[in-house]
């Protein structure tokens, strides 16, 4: 049975882009021509201008950018001018699909955009414009946003009122690192013999492991102990507080800090929890397949998410921070509007191979960013939220890169959500692996079959103008940005060269007897075979992180 892609790969075809709007009065369908499917009403042929659709998971900086789109209709019959008077169209769902005209076989349409109408405008010359944004929660909303309020804390004074209540995850501890705790507390009741400090809030009680006043460890319990832990549900979330026993009266001049634990989650897991519990998302907003795959990788790598949201800022800003710290791609896919997750893994399998002599259109744009090399990375982890400093600031460097380029290029990475030495090391090594050579973001214009690609996909490229003696020969890239032209049915894809750490298939093969040591192995050998490494550092001699069976 024919499918969308089986038609799209043909060199001569007859595609059409159609738009569906889900109004309260029913779903209406539009196209640039009257498209008449068997068994369902025609698409009205009054679209004057189809949108350019652009989506990106970032280039050098991992992020998520989705363009708003506009569609312009001929409204000479006043259909839209009547609709806006009879019913509201703002926030109604708009779906853009690609289909093929085929007289004998039913083709499944490919959805390339799902969004909502956020603005509309009757235009002169009897046209009508709708502007749509992707179906996702507003990434510019700010979170977390619960502050200490007098309604909840009647005795709070100016040292507590208005302060943001932190939302912690994992274990945040300075045990063995400093003389006090890693996490601050908020004075919410200064009354003598009734002093209370607020630690934070979450969906359940936060475990307070240790409490300090001015670096002096205090004891939990009734008198003669110093404090008791009390929880209270406010606004559906559990606030965890330290209630000081009579006679223990820290004031605003004392530094009260603690070590805490709230569950144990990996990064995707923790971010999903935060989005659902604090940012208005639901489980159905997430793509289960990509989440499960990413979560498996982070579990296998031993990643844990240990940190707190202590600043109210835009959702996209929080998410960019997590992307950056964990080398994790998170995006709302334009095809389904769901939240997807992806780690780059050496086990990744390319989904398609594009070749210059048959697929890639004229207009290839090479883009190698030579000035972005990093071969000396200082990285901070074990952040002390109470005293605002990183307890650990080691570095990693790539001597091969320094020798190759004749210079040391430094940068610093701060891990606010990482407290494990192994995890910090792993992440720093992956960042160096990405940046120790010039990073490449080539742009490839492609025909209609490329609409089938998804952000984050790994794609092989063969192109004579690529780097190397023979150009790119089935080189592995990752799809970072798509720009769709629905007038010409072309897609321009911005791809990152990830061949230095992706490829070789899933098999973990102990190499043949004549296999060189890792440092001397070719890229293809490194990708395909297993090598022995230093068990203490879990690194090869050149500093690359050891390959693992799962990654």
């Amino acid at each position, binding site marked *: 049975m024919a499918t969308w892609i089986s038609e799209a790969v043909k*060199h*001569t*075809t*007859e*595609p*059409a882009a159609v738009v569906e709007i889900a109004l309260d009065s029913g779903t209406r369908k539009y196209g640039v*021509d*009257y*498209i*008449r*499917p*068997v*068994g*369902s*009403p*025609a698409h*009205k*042929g009054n679209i004057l201008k189809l949108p350019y659709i652009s989506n990106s998971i970032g280039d050098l900086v991992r992020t998520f950018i989705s363009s708003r789109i506009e569609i312009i209709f001929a409204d000479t019959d006043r259909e839209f001018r009547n609709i806006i008077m009879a019913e509201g169209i703002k926030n109604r769902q708009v779906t853009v699909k690609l*289909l*093929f*005209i*085929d*007289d*004998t*076989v*039913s*083709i499944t349409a490919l959805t390339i955009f799902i969004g909502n109408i956020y603005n509309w405008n009757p235009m002169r010359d009897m046209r009508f414009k709708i502007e749509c944004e992707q179906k996702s929660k507003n990434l510019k909303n700010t979170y977390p946003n619960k502050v200490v309020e007098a309604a909840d804390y009647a005795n709070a004074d100016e040292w507590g009122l208005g302060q943001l209540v932190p939302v912690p995850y994992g274990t945040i501890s300075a045990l063995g690192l400093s003389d006090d705790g890693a996490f601050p507390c908020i004075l919410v009741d200064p009354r003598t013999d009734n002093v209370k400090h607020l630690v934070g809030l979450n969906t359940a009680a936060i475990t307070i492991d240790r409490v300090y006043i001015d670096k002096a460890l205090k004891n939990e319990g009734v008198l003669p102990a110093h404090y008791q832990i009390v929880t209270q549900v406010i606004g559906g979330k559990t606030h965890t507080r330290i209630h000081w026993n009579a006679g223990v009266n820290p004031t605003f001049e004392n530094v009260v800090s603690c070590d805490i634990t709230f569950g144990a989650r990996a990064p995707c897991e923790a971010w999903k929890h935060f989005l659902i519990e604090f940012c208005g998302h639901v489980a159905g907003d997430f793509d289960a397949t990509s989440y499960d795959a990413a979560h498996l990788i982070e579990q296998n790598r031993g990643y844990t998410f240990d940190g707190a949201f202590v600043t109210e800022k835009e959702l996209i800003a929080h998410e960019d921070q997590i992307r950056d710290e964990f080398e994790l791609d998170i995006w709302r896919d334009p095809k389904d509007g769901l939240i997807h997750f992806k780690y780059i893994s050496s086990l990744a399998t390319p989904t398609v191979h594009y070749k*210059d*002599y*048959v*697929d*890639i*259109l*004229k207009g*290839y744009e090479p883009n190698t960013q030579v000035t972005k090399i990093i071969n000396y990375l200082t990285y901070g982890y074990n952040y002390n939220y109470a005293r605002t400093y990183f307890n650990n600031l080691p570095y990693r460097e790539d001597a091969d890169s320094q020798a190759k380029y004749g210079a040391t290029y430094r940068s610093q990475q701060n891990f606010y959500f990482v407290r494990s030495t192994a995890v910090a090391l792993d992440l720093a090594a992956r960042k160096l692996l990405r940046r120790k050579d010039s990073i490449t973001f080539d742009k490839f214009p492609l*025909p*209609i079959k490329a609409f089938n690609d998804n952000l984050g996909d790994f794609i092989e490229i063969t192109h*004579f103008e690529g780097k190397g003696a023979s150009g790119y020969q089935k080189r592995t890239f990752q799809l970072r940005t798509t720009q769709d032209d629905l007038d*010409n*049915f*072309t897609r321009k894809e911005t791809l990152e060269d990830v061949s230095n750490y992706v490829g070789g298939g899933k098999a973990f093969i102990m190499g043949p007897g004549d296999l060189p040591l890792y440092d001397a192995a070719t890229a293809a050998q490194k990708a395909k075979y297993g090598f022995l490494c230093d068990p203490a550092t879990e690194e090869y001699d050149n500093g690359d992180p050891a390959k693992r069976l799962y990654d």
Partner: protein
Amino acid sequence: MANLAYFPLTDDLVEDATVLVVTEDTDYPATKLQNIPMADTAQATDPPAAIVRVRIDFGAAVGAVNPRAWFFLNHNIASGNWIIHRTNAAWVSAQQQAVTYRKYDTKFYGSSWAAASQYFEVEFPAACVYDPTTFWEMGKILCGTDVTEFSKGFSPGVERGLGFRNIHLETEFGVTWDYAKQENINYLGVRWDPDIKATLLDELLAFIRLTKGGAYPAVIIPDKDKTELYYMKNQDRLNWREEMARSIIRNCIMNFVEMSRGKVTA
């Protein structure tokens, strides 16, 4: 050989009539036969080898009419003639005239009816074959008392064109990716000589006004005695100049482009 003729939407009696298709596909209702785009079609749900009927009631306000000109646009009949019946209110046939099949667009321009009537039925017999689908489909039906013929022929002849709108893409190695957007677009170009009958200017002005300078299409009939017809829009404005104290139509060229037929997905 007759001159160029046309049938404007303003002469169409079907537009305001009550039209019924037996048996109508509600996704593609009979009212589609009355709107302007012929790409927006009506369809029937009858199985192959069934009779499809289109019943037209011109209404009491219009009353009994005698339409000798009928146009069936953007149909999918592959073979088989059909019949127009003059009927009574109960759709009982009192007279019938045959419509000779022509692919895509067909006209009937025959004798006047023996009597006027408010009711007409178009019968598509079981012998009609439909392609590419197996059900009856039609974009538009028009009818009127007559067509309008220009009083002067054109010189040197009707220029014709057949066009396709395609997208053509290439790789660096010349491998092409082509997408068909619109196919089989008919074009007509007609030219009038100078120094012609004075009434032609009035006729051309009337045509331009009836079609609102190309905003509305019209049925264009190169020769009303032949089967050829097209549903087209005029692409030009009319130009003329006063010369020697009389209006001269000089180098008047009119170009027409066919309306879209839409696309069927199965």
